[in-house]
C-alpha cells in the first residue's frame, strides 16, 4: 500500500540536542491527522523533514512512495502552512495569493476569493503590515485553496480569535468533504479540533507517544471514580494515567479497554465511568508522570 506520508526511523539532531528519535509513522491518503505535542516536542521539525526543507540525521521519508528531496513530482503533492509565516514581507495579500496560485497545480481561485471575503482580509495590505491573526488567515487561505493532496497546517491559527478559528474549522471540513485529501493539523488547541481529527499522533520529546484512530483512542480513555478501595481493585492491571484522591474517594484516569463485564461490575460497585477528553489525555501523556500498567502503588 502506498501511503501519503511514510516516515521510517526518522531521527534528527541539532548539535547535541535530539529533536526527533526514531519516528515511524504511516499516514494514509484522504484522512485528517492531528499532530499533537507540547512546545519543543519536534512537530515542526518533523513537518520540515516531511516537506524536504530539513534533512533528517537518519531515516527516510516517502511521499506517495517517493522520496521528496529534490523530487519535483513528490513536492508537488505538498503544501505546508507554518505558524512562523511563509510569505515575503513586502508582498501584498493579493500578490501573495497570485504567487501561491502559480505553485499549486490544483489551486482553487474561487475558494481563495471566497475565503478572502469571509475573513475580510484587505488584499492591498502588505504582509508586514498584517496583524498576527491576519497573517494566519492568509496562511489558511493558501493552505485550503492549494488543494494539495497533502496539506499541512503547522499551528496555523496563531493570533486568530475564536470566531476566526471556527471559520477555519468550518471551511476546512467543508472543503475536505468536497475534495478529500490528506490533511495534517499540528496544534495545541486539541479540544477545538478533536472532532475534526480522524487519527492522532502525539509527539513527546521527539518520540511518538501515541498514534491511532481518534475514536479508538477516546474509547480507551476513561475516568473511573468512586470509593478508593473499590476503584483500586477495579483498575488493577489497567494502564493508569493519573489518579487523584479526595478523602475516601478516588478518581483514576486509565488508558485501557474495558469489557462489558468489567463495566457492569464497576457500575454494580457504584463507580462512575466517564470518558477522558482528548486534550486531557494529551496532558496526561505528555505533561505528567506516566504510571505504568498495573503499577498503582507508585
Amino acid at each position, binding site marked *: 500500500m502506498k501511503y501519503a506520508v511514510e516516515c521510517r526511523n526518522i531521527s534528527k539532531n541539532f548539535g547535541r540536542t535530539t529533536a526527533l528519535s526514531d519516528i515511524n509513522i504511516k499516514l494514509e491518503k484522504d484522512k485528517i491527522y492531528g499532530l499533537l505535542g507540547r512546545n519543543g516536542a519536534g512537530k515542526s521539525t518533523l513537518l520540515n523533514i516531511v*516537506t*524536504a526543507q530539513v534533512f533528517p540525521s537518519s531515516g527516510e521519508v516517502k511521499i506517495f512512495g517517493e522520496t521528496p528531496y*529534490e523530487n519535483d513530482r513528490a*513536492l508537488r503533492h505538498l503544501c505546508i502552512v507554518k505558524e512562523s509565516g511563509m510569505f515575503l514581507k513586502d508582498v501584498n495579500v493579493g500578490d501573495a495569493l497570485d504567487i*501561491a496560485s502559480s505553485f499549486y497545480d490544483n489551486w482553487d481561485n474561487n475558494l481563495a476569493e471566497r475565503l478572502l471575503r469571509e475573513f475580510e482580509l484587505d488584499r492591498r495590505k502588505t504582509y508586514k503590515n498584517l496583524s498576527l491573526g491576519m497573517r494566519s488567515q492568509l496562511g489558511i487561505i493558501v493552505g485550503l485553496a492549494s488543494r494539495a493532496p497533502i496539506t499541512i497546517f503547522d499551528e496555523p491559527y496563531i493570533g486568530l480569535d475564536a470566531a476566526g478559528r471556527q471559520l477555519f474549522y468550518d471551511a476546512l471540513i467543508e472543503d475536505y468533504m468536497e475534495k478529500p485529501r490528506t490533511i495534517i493539523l499540528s496544534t495545541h488547541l486539541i479540544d477545538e479540533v478533536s472532532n475534526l481529527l480522524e487519527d492522532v499522533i502525539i509527539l513527546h520529546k521527539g518520540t511518538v507517544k501515541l498514534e491511532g484512530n481518534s475514536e479508538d483512542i477516546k474509547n480507551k480513555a476513561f475516568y473511573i471514580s468512586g470509593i478508593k478501595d473499590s476503584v483500586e481493585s477495579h483498575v488493577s492491571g489497567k494502564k493508569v494515567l493519573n489518579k487523584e484522591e479526595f478523602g475516601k474517594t478516588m478518581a483514576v484516569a486509565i488508558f485501557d479497554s474495558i469489557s462489558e463485564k468489567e463495566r457492569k461490575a464497576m457500575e454494580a460497585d457504584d463507580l462512575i465511568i466517564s470518558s477522558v477528553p482528548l486534550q486531557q489525555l494529551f496532558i496526561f501523556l505528555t505533561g505528567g508522570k506516566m504510571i505504568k500498567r498495573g503499577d498503582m502503588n507508585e
Partner: protein
Amino acid sequence: MNRIKSHLKMHYINTKMSLIIFWSIMFAISVLGILIALYARSRGYNGTITISHMPAVVIFGAISGLVSYNETLPYMLNMGITRKNFILGYALYNTVLSLILSVIFTFLTLWESLLYNLLGFSNQQIGQIFTAFSIGEIFDRIWSCFIITLAVTAFFTLVGSIYYKKGIMYLFGIGALIMLVMFIPGVAAGVFRVLEYIILYLTGDKGYLTMTLFSLAFFLACYSIIYPLARTSQVKR
C-alpha cells in the same frame, strides 16, 4: 519549467516595488544633477561635471543578490520547489535583473546626455558616455553595464549563499583569509591589474569580448560554488 516560471514571477512581484523606488530616486537625482549643472554654469563654472549612475546600479544588483537569496530560498523551499530549480531560477533572475538594470541605466544616461546637449553643455564639460547617440552605442552601453552587473550580482549571491549556509562568522573567516592572501607577493598587484582592466574596459579602452568572457566565467564560477551550497541548505529553525 513552469516552476522556474513561477519562481521568476515571484521575483518580479517581490522586486518590482524596490525597482520602482530605486529608479524614481535615480531619476530624481538625475533631474537634480541637471539643475545643479545649470546653476553651476550660471555662476561661471566651466569645469567638468562627471555624472555616472553605474555605481548605484551595481550596488542595487549586489544588495539584491545578497538579500534576495536569503529571503527567497526558505520561501521557495516552503512552496515546494527543488533546490536545483531554485538555483536555475535564481541564476535566470540574476541575469534578467542585470539586463533590466542595464537597459534602464542606459536610457537614463541617454536621456541625460540628450538633455545636457540640448542645454548647450559639451560632452567634454559633462563627461557623458554618449557621444554618437547611435544604436550601436546604446547597445554597447547596455552590454558593458550588463556584464559588470551580472558578475557583481553573482558574486553577492555567492556571499549570500555562504552566509545562509554557514553564517556570518564563516564569512568573516573568508574575509580574513583573503586579506592574508593579499599579503602574498604578487597577489595584490594581480588584483589591481584586474581592477585596472575593468576600469579601462568601462572607459572603452579594452575589448568587449575579453570582458564578456571574463564576466561569464566569473558568473559560472560563482554558481558552481552556490549550487552545492544550496543543495545542502535547510530551512532554519
